């Protein structure tokens, strides 16, 4: 066991996977010699050589397109898109190609690739370094979509993703790279070394894709969140003194509906939190499933808290990013109803 940050956990997942399986290759912009702009691939080139961890041209469609070809050959590429905001040039390769290869070839070809990318805001990245595009991927059948909220999960889920036989989008909330945070921007991020979930086994382990985790047990209201918002939701429940149950989805596609339904059936109330833009965001999917499966148990309308329907602003990001205040107001609203 070691104490790790989320970056170290992600790196460790790739390291363990590369050591176990020669077919795992890692590449992307600045990923090789330098070890990535967030240093999540640091040391991998030195350890595994230039043909297993290397720098690519700045061409996201090239990165994902070649990964698909390598996967067809029999390799297991784990590629990095430098920021989620830059995956759009690769969108055609992801949606029309990676996601459909198994289906359209009736299993003749498969596409076991992992596409990692830093997502989300809270680091003054402005509109081009802060996006949360998960809903774009969950709308695509054939992809899997994972958003970890802590180092322990990040490592176990990334290894599972690399071993998964289908394409997996692995979204890393960059606000959490160095430590969890409670959503109050005036308060510092606490290092993961002070957090239970910063304790990460050195070797191989996996966390099943498609399983949510209850982070805080409660009986008054269910808060469904993922990534950075798990921490914001926990702080909001604490601040508001509400007996909330906080569910960390971890995997958006496939989604652990059972855990959500079980909780909402018990609490009768639900708030869904994400930092991506509200309209057509992933929260809409959760709300719709909750009303479909828990309608007769609901005591209040389900409420969503999300980023506003605007691009992500640079200077006012703390007014954009849902914080414990906004989540707390939503909790109060469903509790009063």
């Amino acid at each position, binding site marked *: 066991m070691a104490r790790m940050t989320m970056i170290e956990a992600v790196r460790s997942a790739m390291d363990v996977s590369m050591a176990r399986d020669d077919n795992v290759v890692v590449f992307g912009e600045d990923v090789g010699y*330098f070890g990535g*702009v967030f240093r999540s691939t640091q040391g991998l080139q030195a350890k595994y050589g230039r043909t297993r961890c290397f720098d690519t041209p700045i061409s996201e469609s*090239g990165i994902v397109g070649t990964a698909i070809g390598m996967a067809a050959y029999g390799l297991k590429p784990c590629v990095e898109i430098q920021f989620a905001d830059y995956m759009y040039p690769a969108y055609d390769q992801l949606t029309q190609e990676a996601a459909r290869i198994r289906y359209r070839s009736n299993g003749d070809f498969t596409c076991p690739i992992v596409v990692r990318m830093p997502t989300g805001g809270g680091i*003054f990245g402005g509109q081009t*370094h802060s996006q949360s595009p998960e809903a774009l991927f969950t709308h695509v059948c054939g992809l899997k979509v994972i958003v970890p909220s802590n180092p322990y999960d990040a490592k176990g889920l990334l290894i599972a993703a690399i071993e998964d036989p289908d394409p997996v989008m692995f979204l890393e909330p960059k606000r959490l790279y160095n430590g969890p945070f409670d959503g109050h921007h005036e308060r510092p991020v606490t290092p993961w070394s002070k957090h239970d979930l910063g304790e990460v086994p050195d070797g191989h382990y996996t966390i099943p894709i498609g399983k949510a985790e209850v982070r805080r047990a409660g009986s008054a209201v269910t808060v469904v969140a993922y990534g950075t918002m798990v921490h914001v939701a926990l702080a909001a429940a604490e601040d508001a003194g509400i007996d909330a149950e906080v569910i960390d989805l971890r995997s958006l596609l496939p989604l652990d509906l059972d855990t959500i339904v079980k909780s909402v059936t018990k609490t009768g109330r639900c708030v869904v939190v994400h930092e991506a833009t509200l309209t057509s965001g992933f929260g809409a999917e959760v709300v719709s499933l909750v009303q479909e499966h828990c309608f007769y148990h609901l005591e209040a309308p389900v409420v969503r808290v999300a980023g506003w329907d*605007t*691009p992500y602003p640079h200077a006012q990001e703390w007014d954009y990013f849902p914080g414990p205040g906004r989540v707390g107001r939503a909790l109060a609203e469903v509790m009063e109803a």
Partner: protein
Amino acid sequence: MVDSARLSLHVPEPAVRPGGQPDFSNVKIAKAGSVPRPEVDVASEDIRDLAYSIIRVLNREGEAVGPWAGSLSDEALLTGLRNMMKLRAFDARMLMAQRQGKTSFYMQHLGEEAVSCAFRKALEKGDMNFPTYRQAGLLIADDYPMVEMMNQIYSNESDPLRGRQLPIMYSSKEHGFFTISGNLATQYVQAVGWAMASAIKNDSRIAAAWIGDGSTAESDFHSALVFASTYKAPVILNIVNNQWAISTFQGIARGGSGTFAARGLGFGIPALRVDGNDYLAVHAVAYWAAERARRNLGPTLIEYVTYRVGAHSTSDDPSAYRPKTESEAWPLGDPVLRLKKHLIIKGAWSEERHVQAEAEIMDEVIEAQRQAEAHGTLHAGGRPSVRDIFEGVYAEMPPHIRRQRQKAGY
């Protein structure tokens, strides 16, 4: 079956890494004045060599020599020197402001000042640049107020972009500066579209597209070349080859042979390489390309060979991937010092006046900074209203955004 050795993957690597001796022996540099200057209506097939050579005007002694010399008066050159010095001083102050926590981020131009400053002077009012993030010289050389640039960098209450954009992602239609995107290369093909529109409307204005060496790997670069060559768009396609794309050396985007300029040849686009640290050469080549575009002769592709002396951005540490002394070994020198030397040997400038000018310019920059900071910095003083988050997503605010604005308390 061919009896051959097993395959192995070729992954390009730069000649040296940190700790090694800087090595630019692979950069073939033509003698100043040695590259011919063709007529602007030349056929691209007849100047293929220019995509492989380097057009230079200023020689080691500081003299302007050869067929590309003489396009600028002393007065214009002095203005050029001043603009480059201004950009350098601006960078130094803003870099410091970032370190002091007055803004979140900054990107400097150190070593590349000649490219954008000289290029701007080859354009006319009404022409449009589609820049990337290292061409603030286009604004400086067009006398865009530095205070406005700083207001943008500070995201303060007077920020013309209302705190929405990352620092340095300026926008000014009036000054021919299209709004900067953080997503690389997207603007390249947009510039071609703007130029096509100008041709459709029988206008006289031309466009300029900007990209870094690394970003030429993006599909949008190639789409731009297809459209520019097909429609003979009045556009100047600029590639700033500053040797590095963050930590990645230019050989990763280019491979081991050819040049970035040569990418134009397959499209039949006249392609030139120029010494990007030579103010006179940059201006002469840009002017040549602008004339071609204006005479409806179509696009020109220009590769500026230069070196990124500073870090990629304030988030980067170049000593982790290249020798610390590499910038000093760069064989094309420093653009400011080269132009200064030229003006001194011409008798139009002196060491004393240079020192004095440096001080004056720094005062001017500091005064602009004082004014900007009176409107606030990112974390202190006046800032755009939260209300501004919701404005301008659409021309007219739709009801769902109005509801969200009210929910936010504005």
